[in-house]
C-alpha cells in the first residue's frame, strides 16, 4: 500500500509541476488589450444603459455626433458630425434653441450599412420612445421638450392617466407628431429644435461618452426588432423589460471595435473594425474582464496579464510601488460624496430615530430642519481625517454640491472645517437649548461594503458623541436594498450618498441635491421642499435658461454659497480618479467624462 501511495503522490507532484511549467509559458500579445475591472454590464443597448459598466463597452463600439477634445470636458471635436455647432459658426441658432449637425459622409456601420442623417434621427427618436423607467433618456427630454419623460409628454398631449404603454395607434401618432418636432433631417444635416428655450449643456449631453447620444443603424435595429420607425407603435416599444430589449446583447456601431462575445459579469470581447472610417485601431482584440476580487486583478497586473486594471482608491498604495506599472492620480472625476440631511424624517415605523421625540432617546421628525443641528453636525465632522485617512489624500473637499472644475467652483472655494467649539455652540442653541439639555439618539445607516461611507458614519459618531455624552449615534451597515429603501421612504437621518455626473455641467449637480424635487432633495420631506421652493428652485431654473457663461457662473456660485452657508447637507468631498496601467501602454490621457477605457487611443508597441 505504501508503494501505491508513493506512486500516487509522485504522479500528483509531477502533474502539478508540469502544470506550473507549461502554464507559465504564456505569451504577451501586442495586438490584444486586456482591461480588468469590476462589476458587470447592465445592457449593451445604448438607450437603456445608465451605468459605467455598459457605457465603457458602448463607448468603444458606438459613436456620437461629437466628442470631447483631449482632457477637457468643455471643448469638443466633431466625430460623426463634421463640425461642432457653435454660435460662431452659425450652427447654433435662434438664441440657442436650434442646433445643426452636418453629418459625416462615407462612414459605415460595421455591417457595411452607410451612415445617413436618417440614422441619427432614428437614434434620437428610438431613444425617446424607448424611455425606460430609471433610464437616462430624461436628458433628451429635458433640453428638447422641457419635460422629464415620455410619460410627461403623453400626459401633456393625451391626458393624465394614460400610460405610453397603453397608447392606441391614433394616440401614438399624436404623441409622435410632438416628438418629431424636436429632430429633423435637412439634407445632409440633422437639426435639433429645443422646444422650451435654450439649454447650455445640450452639446455635453450629445458628446461621446454619453451612451444615450450614440448613433445606431436604423435598418439593422429594425431587423433586430427595435422600434420599427412607425409613428403608431409607441406603445409596443415603450419601456421594455431589459431581457426583452432587442438590442440588449447586440451591437452595431460605427466605432473602432465590434462586439464578438459578451458573458455578463465575466468578460466582453471586442475585435477591431477593420473598416473603420478613421485609421483602424491598434488592437485586434480588446478584452474587458470582470473580476471583483482586487487581489486577483492586482496579480494579473503584476504578471502583465492585464494591461490596465481598476484599482479602488484604498488599494492604490499596493500597486504604486509595483515595477513596470504606471499610476496616474488626481484626475478630477465627476463624482462626489455628501451626507444628505433629512429635514423631515418619516417617523412611523422607523427604527433610526429612537423614540421619535426630543427626549434624549430619539430625535423628532424635523430634527435636521433646525439649522443649528445641521451646523452642529457639520462642524463636528473631521474633514481632514476623512480626506487624508479614508481617501488617502486623493480627493478635493467639496464647497457645495457642484464639483470642480465646473462653473461655480474654484480651487480656493470656501469649504467646511472641523470646529468642535462651534459645533458645541450650535448644539447648545439648537431647539432653544433642548437638544443640549436632553441629548438625542439616532442611527446612521450605510450600505455595507462601502468603506468610505462607513468611515464617514464612524467619524461623525466619534466626534458628535464626544461633544456631549447625551448624544448617542448608532452606526449600522445594511444591504444596498435596505439602504435604498430607507432613502426612498424618507426614513434616513443622514444618508451618505454620492452622485455620478451625467454631463459636465453644474445644472446636473445642483438639481439632484438642491431642487425641491431633486433626486436627493426630494427625499428630504416637505420641510426641505418649502425651503427649496423659495430659495433654490428659482436659481436653478434661471441657471439652465441662461446662455452666457459669465452670468451662469454667478448663479451657480450663489447656489454653491447658499448650500454651504445654510448647511443644507454635509458637503464632503470629490474623490479624484486614477488610472493604473502597465508601462507599455502608450497614448493614455485622462478625461473625466470617459466612462472607462478608450482602446482606440492606446497602443502597446
Amino acid at each position, binding site marked *: 500500500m505504501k508503494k501505491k501511495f508513493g506512486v500516487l503522490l509522485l504522479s500528483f507532484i509531477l502533474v502539478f509541476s508540469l502544470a506550473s511549467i507549461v502554464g507559465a509559458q504564456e505569451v504577451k500579445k501586442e495586438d490584444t488589450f486586456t482591461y480588468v475591472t469590476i462589476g458587470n454590464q447592465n445592457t449593451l443597448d445604448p438607450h437603456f444603459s445608465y451605468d459605467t459598466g455598459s457605457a465603457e463597452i458602448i463607448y468603444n463600439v458606438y459613436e456620437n455626433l461629437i466628442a470631447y477634445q483631449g482632457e477637457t470636458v468643455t471643448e469638443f471635436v466633431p466625430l460623426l458630425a463634421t463640425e461642432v455647432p457653435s454660435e460662431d459658426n452659425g450652427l447654433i441658432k435662434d438664441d440657442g434653441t436650434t442646433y445643426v449637425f452636418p453629418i459625416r459622409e462615407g462612414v459605415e456601420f460595421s455591417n457595411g450599412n452607410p451612415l445617413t442623417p436618417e440614422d441619427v434621427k432614428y437614434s434620437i427618436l428610438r431613444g425617446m420612445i424607448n424611455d425606460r423607467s430609471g433610464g437616462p433618456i430624461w436628458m433628451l427630454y429635458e433640453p428638447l421638450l422641457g419635460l422629464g419623460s415620455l410619460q410627461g409628454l403623453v400626459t401633456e398631449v393625451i391626458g393624465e392617466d394614460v400610460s405610453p404603454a397603453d397608447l392606441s395607434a391614433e394616440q401614438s401618432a399624436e404623441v409622435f407628431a410632438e416628438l418629431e418636432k424636436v429632430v429633423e433631417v435637412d439634407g445632409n444635416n440633422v437639426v435639433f429644435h429645443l422646444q422650451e428655450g435654450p439649454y447650455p449643456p445640450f452639446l455635453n449631453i450629445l458628446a461621446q461618452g454619453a451612451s444615450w447620444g450614440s448613433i445606431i443603424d436604423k435598418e439593422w435595429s429594425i431587423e433586430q426588432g427595435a422600434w420599427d420607425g412607425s409613428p403608431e407603435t409607441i406603445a409596443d416599444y415603450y419601456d421594455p423589460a431589459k431581457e426583452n430589449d432587442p438590442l440588449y446583447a447586440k451591437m452595431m456601431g460605427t466605432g473602432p471595435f465590434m462586439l464578438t462575445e459578451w458573458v455578463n459579469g465575466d468578460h466582453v470581447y471586442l475585435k477591431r473594425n477593420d473598416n473603420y472610417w478613421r485609421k483602424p485601431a491598434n488592437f485586434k482584440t480588446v478584452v474587458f474582464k470582470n473580476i471583483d476580487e482586487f*487581489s486577483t486583478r492586482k496579480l494579473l497586473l503584476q504578471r502583465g496579464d492585464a494591461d490596465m486594471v481598476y484599482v479602488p482608491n*484604498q488599494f492604490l498604495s499596493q500597486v504604486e*510601488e509595483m515595477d513596470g506599472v504606471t499610476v496616474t492620480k488626481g484626475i478630477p472625476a465627476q463624482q462626489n460624496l455628501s451626507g444628505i440631511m433629512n429635514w423631515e424624517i418619516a417617523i412611523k415605523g422607523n427604527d433610526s430615530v429612537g423614540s421619535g421625540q426630543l427626549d434624549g432617546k430619539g430625535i423628532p421628525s424635523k430634527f435636521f430642519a433646525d439649522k443649528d443641528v445641521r451646523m452642529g453636525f457639520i462642524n463636528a465632522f473631521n474633514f481632514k481625517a476623512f480626506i487624508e485617512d*479614508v481617501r488617502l489624500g486623493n480627493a478635493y473637499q467639496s464647497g457645495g454640491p457642484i464639483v470642480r472644475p465646473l462653473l461655480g467652483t474654484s480651487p480656493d472655494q470656501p469649504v467646511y472645517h472641523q470646529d468642535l467649539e462651534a459645533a458645541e455652540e450650535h448644539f447648545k442653541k439648537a431647539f432653544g437649548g433642548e437638544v443640549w439639555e436632553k441629548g438625542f439618539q439616532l442611527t446612521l445607516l450605510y450600505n*455595507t461594503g462601502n468603506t468610505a461611507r*462607513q468611515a464617514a458614519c464612524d467619524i461623525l459618531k466619534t466626534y458628535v458623541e464626544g461633544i456631549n455624552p447625551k448624544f448617542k449615534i448608532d*452606526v449600522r451597515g445594511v*444591504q444596498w436594498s435596505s439602504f435604498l429603501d430607507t432613502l426612498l421612504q424618507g426614513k434616513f437621518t443622514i444618508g451618505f450618498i454620492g452622485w455620478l455626473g451625467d454631463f459636465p455641467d453644474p445644472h446636473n449637480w445642483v438639481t439632484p441635491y438642491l431642487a425641491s424635487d431633486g433626486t436627493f432633495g426630494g427625499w428630504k420631506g416637505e420641510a426641505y421642499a418649502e425651503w427649496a421652493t423659495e430659495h433654490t428652485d428659482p436659481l436653478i431654473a434661471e441657471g439652465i435658461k441662461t446662455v452666457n457663461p459669465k452670468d451662469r457662473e454667478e448663479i451657480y456660485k450663489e447656489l454653491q454659497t447658499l448650500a454651504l452657508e445654510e448647511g443644507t447637507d454635509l458637503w464632503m468631498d470629490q474623490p479624484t480618479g486614477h488610472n493604473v496601467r502597465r508601462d507599455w501602454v502608450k497614448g493614455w490621457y485622462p478625461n473625466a467624462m470617459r466612462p472607462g477605457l478608450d482602446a482606440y487611443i492606446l497602443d502597446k508597441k
Partner: protein
Amino acid sequence: MEWQEVLLKLIKNKISLFGIGIIIFFVIISISAPWLAPPADPDDPYMIPRAGWSIQPKPPSEDHIFGTSEGQYDIFYGIIWGARTAFRVGLIVVGISTLIGILIGTIAGFYGGVIDEILMRITDVFLSMPFLVAAIVLTTILGKGLDNVMIALVTFGWMGTARLMRSQVLEIKAEEFIQAAEALGANDIRIIMKHVILNTIFPVVINASMRMGSIVITASSLSFLGVGAPTGYADWGQMISFSRNWILGSQGNALQFWYTVLIPGLAITFFCLSWNLVGDAFRDILDPKLQN
C-alpha cells in the same frame, strides 16, 4: 454510564484534556474580556473600537499588540470579544436547534404514521439545501446581525438531530418495556419523558458537542461572506474578511499583512479544534462499539 464517570474519563484522556484546556482558556478570555480589553462604549462592547480611519492594516505595536486590520479595527480587541461571540453563537444555536430536533424527532418517531411521514418530508425539504447555502439565503433576507445569523442557523440546523432522535426513538419503542408501559396505560408524555428521552439522550449529546465547532465555523463563514455580523462587530469570521484584500501583501513582501489573517484564523481554528477534540473523545467514551 454515569456523568461523573464520563467526566472523569474525559479528564483522564490526554487528547480531550488538551481540548478542555483550550475551551477553559477561551472561557477565561470571554469572562475577563471587560478587563483584558476595556470597551470604549460600555453599552456596546462588541463593537471593535477603531484606532483611526485609514484602510491599510497596521502591524503589531505596543498600543495594538496584534496590530490593526483594514479600517484600523484593533485585532486584539476583536479576538477577545470575539471569543464571547463564538460561545454565544455556538451554545445558543446548538442548544435551540438540538431542542427543536429532539422535539420533532421524538414526535415523529413516537407517533409514526401520517405525522411521521409529514414531519420527515419536511425534514427532507430542509435537508435538500446545503446548510451554508440556506443560511446565506436567510441571513441575507433577514439582514445583518448576529441574531439573524442565529435564527438562520437554527432554522436549518435541527434536521440532523431530528433524524437521529427519530431513529433512536424507533429503536427504543420496539423494545419491550415501552410496550409494557403502554399496555399499563401510561400516558404518552410520561412514556416519552421517562423512557424514550432518557434512553436516547446520549447520542444526541455527542452529536451536539460535535456540532459546536461546525456551527461556529458556519456562523463565521457567513460573516466572512459579509452577510453575518455587522461591520465592526467582534466576530472572528468578520476579522478574517477584513484581511481579504490584503492577503497578497505588497510586491516583494507577500506576507506583509500576515497578522490580519493568521491571528483570527488561529483563534477560530483552536476554538473549533477544542470542541472537536472533546466531542471526539466524548464519542469514544460513550460509544461502546469503539471500546476495546
